[in-house]
C-alpha cells in the first residue's frame, strides 16, 4: 500500500522565475496515477475487444452501445448515476480500512443490517414526528448498526488476531441470515405474504429525488461521504496516523500511535458508511427492509475501491464509470443478444489489468523526478 500524500503540493514561487523543473516535477508526480489508470483501462478495453471479437460480435458496436446506454443522453446519465450512488458508500467501506492495510470484503453485511436497523427505527416514529426527523433517526440507526458490524471485524482483528478478510466475509453471511430472521419474524409486515418485508414507509417519509434529476439523494450523500473521508485521511492527524499504521504497524506502535483505536475507529466508520447505504436503499428505493437489500452492492464496492486505489475522491469517478457500465449492460443484452455475463467479463478484465498495473508505479522514469538527470 502506498502512503504517498495526495495533497497537491504547489511548486515554490521560485519556479515561476524561469526555472521550469519544479513545475515539471510536480506535473510528473501528479500525472503518474492518471496515466497508469488510463493506460490500464485502455488495455482492459483492448483485451475485452479481443474477447468480443472471438465470440463473433463487433467491439466497435459494443463500445458505441456502452456509450449510448451509459452516458449518451440525459436519461442514460441519470441511469448511471442512480446505479453509482450506493457504490460510493460501499466502496468507502473497503477503502477506509485499506488505508490501514486491512482488506474488508464483507460490506454487504453492514448494508443489509443497516437497512434493517433503519427500517426498524422508523417503525415507531412514522405518523407522530416529521419526515426529516424520521430520516435522520433512520440514518443514525443504519450507521450505528453498520459501524458496530464492521467495527467488530476490527476488534477481532486487533485484539484476537482474526483475519479481517475472512471474518468480514463470513459475517456478511451471518448478517443476511439475521436480516432474513428479522424480516420473516419479529419485524414482518403481516400483509407481506410472499415477499417478507417490514412495514412499508409511508410515501411522505421517503427520501426523494434530487431536484431536477431522477436520481435519489443517495448520490449526494455518497459524494459528501467520499469528500469527508478524503479530508479525514489526507488532512487530519487521525488520517495521517492511520496511513502510518497502514504502512508499518510496528513503526506506528513504536511511535506510540494508538493502533487499536485506529483500527476499530476506521472499521467502524467504514461500516457506518455501508450501513448508511442500506438506510438509503430502504428510505429512497425499497420503502421497507426485505431480501432485495442483499443486491450485491457491498461486493461491487470492493471492485470500486480497488479500482480507485482506495482514494476516496477517486471513488466518485470510478463508481460512476461502473454505474455506466452496469447501465449499458442492459442495452448490450437487448441490442446485441449477448448474455449478462458479458459485462461481468469486462469488469473482471478491468479489475485484473488495473491490479496488475499497480506494479508499474515508480517504474517509469518519466514520472519519477528523482531519476532525472540533474540539470540545475
Amino acid at each position, binding site marked *: 500500500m502506498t502512503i504517498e500524500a495526495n495533497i497537491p503540493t504547489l511548486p515554490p514561487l521560485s519556479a515561476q522565475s524561469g526555472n521550469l523543473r519544479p513545475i515539471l516535477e510536480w506535473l510528473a508526480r501528479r500525472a503518474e496515477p492518471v496515466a497508469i489508470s488510463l493506460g490500464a483501462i485502455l488495455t482492459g478495453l483492448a483485451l475485452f475487444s479481443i474477447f468480443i471479437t472471438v465470440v463473433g460480435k463487433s467491439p466497435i458496436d459494443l463500445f*458505441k452501445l456502452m456509450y*449510448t*446506454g451509459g452516458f*449518451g*443522453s440525459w*436519461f*442514460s446519465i441519470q*441511469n448511471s448515476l*442512480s*446505479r453509482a450512488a450506493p457504490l460510493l458508500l460501499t466502496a468507502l467501506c473497503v477503502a477506509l480500512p485499506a488505508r490501514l492495510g486491512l482488506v474488508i470484503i464483507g460490506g454487504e453485511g453492514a448494508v443489509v443490517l443497516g437497512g434493517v436497523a433503519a427500517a426498524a427505527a422508523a417503525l415507531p416514529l412514522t405518523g407522530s414526528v416529521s419526515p426529516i426527523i424520521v430520516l435522520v433517526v433512520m440514518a443514525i440507526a443504519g450507521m450505528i448498526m453498520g459501524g458496530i458490524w464492521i467495527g467488530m471485524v476490527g476488534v477481532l482483528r486487533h485484539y484476537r488476531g482474526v483475519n479481517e478478510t475472512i471474518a468480514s466475509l463470513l459475517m456478511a453471511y451471518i448478517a443476511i*441470515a439475521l436480516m*432474513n430472521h428479522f424480516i*420473516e*419474524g419479529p419485524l414482518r409486515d403481516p400483509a407481506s*405474504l*410472499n*415477499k*417478507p418485508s417490514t412495514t*412499508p414507509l409511508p410515501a411522505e417519509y421517503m427520501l426523494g429525488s434530487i431536484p431536477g434529476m431522477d436520481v*435519489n439523494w443517495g448520490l449526494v450523500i455518497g459524494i459528501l461521504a467520499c469528500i469527508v473521508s478524503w479530508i479525514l485521511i489526507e488532512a487530519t492527524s487521525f488520517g495521517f496516523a492511520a496511513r502510518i499504521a497502514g504502512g508499518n504497524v510496528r513503526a506506528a506502535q513504536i511511535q506510540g500511535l494508538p493502533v487499536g483505536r485506529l483500527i476499530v475507529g476506521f472499521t467502524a466508520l467504514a461500516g457506518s458508511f455501508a450501513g448508511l447505504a442500506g438506510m438509503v*436503499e430502504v428510505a429512497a*428505493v*425499497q*420503502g421497507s427492509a*426485505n*431480501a*432485495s437489500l442483499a*443486491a*450485491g452492492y457491498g461486493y461491487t464496492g470492493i471492485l470500486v475501491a480497488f479500482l480507485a486505489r482506495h482514494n476516496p475522491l477517486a471513488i466518485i469517478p470510478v463508481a460512476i464509470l461502473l454505474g455506466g457500465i*452496469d*447501465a449499458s449492460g*442492459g*442495452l448490450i*443484452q*437487448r*441490442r446485441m443478444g449477448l*448474455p*449478462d455475463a458479458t459485462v461481468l467479463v469486462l469488469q473482471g478484465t478491468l479489475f485484473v489489468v488495473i491490479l496488475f498495473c499497480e506494479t508499474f508505479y515508480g517504474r517509469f522514469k518519466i514520472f519519477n523526478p528523482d531519476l532525472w538527470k540533474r540539470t540545475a
Partner: protein
Amino acid sequence: MIKLLPMNRRSFLQSTAAGAAAIGLSPSLFSTTAAAQTALTVGFIYVGPKDDYGYNQAHAEGAAVIKAMPGVTVVEEENVPETVDVQKTMESMINLDGAGLVFPTSFGYFDPHMLAMAAKYPDVQFRHCGGLWKEGVNPMNTGSYFGYIGQGQYLNGITAGYASKSKKIGFVAAKPIPQVLQNINSFLLGARSVDPAITCQVIFTGEWSLAVKEAEATNALIDQGADVITCHVDSPKVVVETAAGRGAFVCGYHANQSPLAPEKYLTGAEWAWGNVYTKFVTEAQAGTPLGNFVRGGLKDGFVKMSPLGPGVSAEARTKFDATLAEMMKGSFSVFKGPIKDNKGGDAVTAGQTLAEDAIELESMAYLVEGVVGSTS
C-alpha cells in the same frame, strides 16, 4: 395522450426494428383508428439467467413464443436485481427501445419498482408475474398474471408416490411463504393419494437461488432415505443433477429439466407462459384493453406437465392420466377436508373443499400432516 418521447433521443438507433416498433406502438395500443399497423415492442426482465432451467427460463420460453408473432419485437434483460436497477431497466426499454408493453417477471419487481414506472409512464402497459394487482389501488396500465401450479405439484406427487420404495420423499424449498408451502403440501398430498404412509421431508434454504445450499439440502434428504426429490427454488438445475447423481428420482418444477436427468426425471410442473403472453400481445395489437388480473391453472393453459419419463410405471401413468383428466374438467380439488397440519391442528376442516383459486390458499401458513419440517 400519445407520447413520442423516445423519438427525439434516437439518432443513435439502428433505423430498422426498434424505430419502426416505436412508431407503430401508439396506434396499436391506444388508438382505435389503427390500420394494419400492429408493430409492438415488448420488454422482458428476468431476475436471474434466462437459461437457468427454472423460473427465468420458463418466462424466456414464453418470450420466445411471442417473438415469432408478426410485428412483435422482443427485448430481454437478465440478472436484473430488485433495486433501482430494475426501474432504470424498464425506463431504458421504454426510452431507448420504445417498449409499449413490459413484463417484469420477478415477484419483487412489483412494489415499489413497477408501480413507480407505471406512474411515470402512463401510456405504457405493465404486466407483472404474481397476484399482487388490486383493483382500485393499482393503476389500470398495470396488472398481474399468475398460474395455479399446486395441481401440477399434486401430479408430481402421484408419480413420486409410485416411484418411491422407501416411502420417503424430499422437497428442497426456498422460503416458507404461502406459494411454496402450497406446493410442498400438494406434492405430499399427491403422493399420499397413492400410499397414505408416505412422508415428505422438507428443507428450506432461505434463498431463491443458492446453489451450494440446494446441493447440501438434496444430499441431506437422500442421506435420510428420501428416494424422490422435488423442489421450489428459482433454478432446479442443482437439485435435479445432484439427486439424479445420487440415484434418486426427481420431479421437476418451473421448466422441463428432463435433459439434465433423462433416466431419473419422472415429470414436472411447468409454466406455460407462452399462452399467457400470446394473449396479452394479441390484445395489445388489436387495441383491446389488456386484462388486469389474469390467473389460471392446468385447464386454462397457464400450467403444463413435462412428458412422463421412463421411471413412471404403467400403473402410475393410469392414475396420473385419470387425475389430470379430472383437473382439466375443473372438478378437482387438492385440499379436501379433513386435513390436519403437521402440528396436530386442523388445516382444512371436514366437509370443506378448497378450489385452486380459493382465497384461503393464498395465505397458507401450515405444512400438512405427513410433511416433516417446520415453517419457522
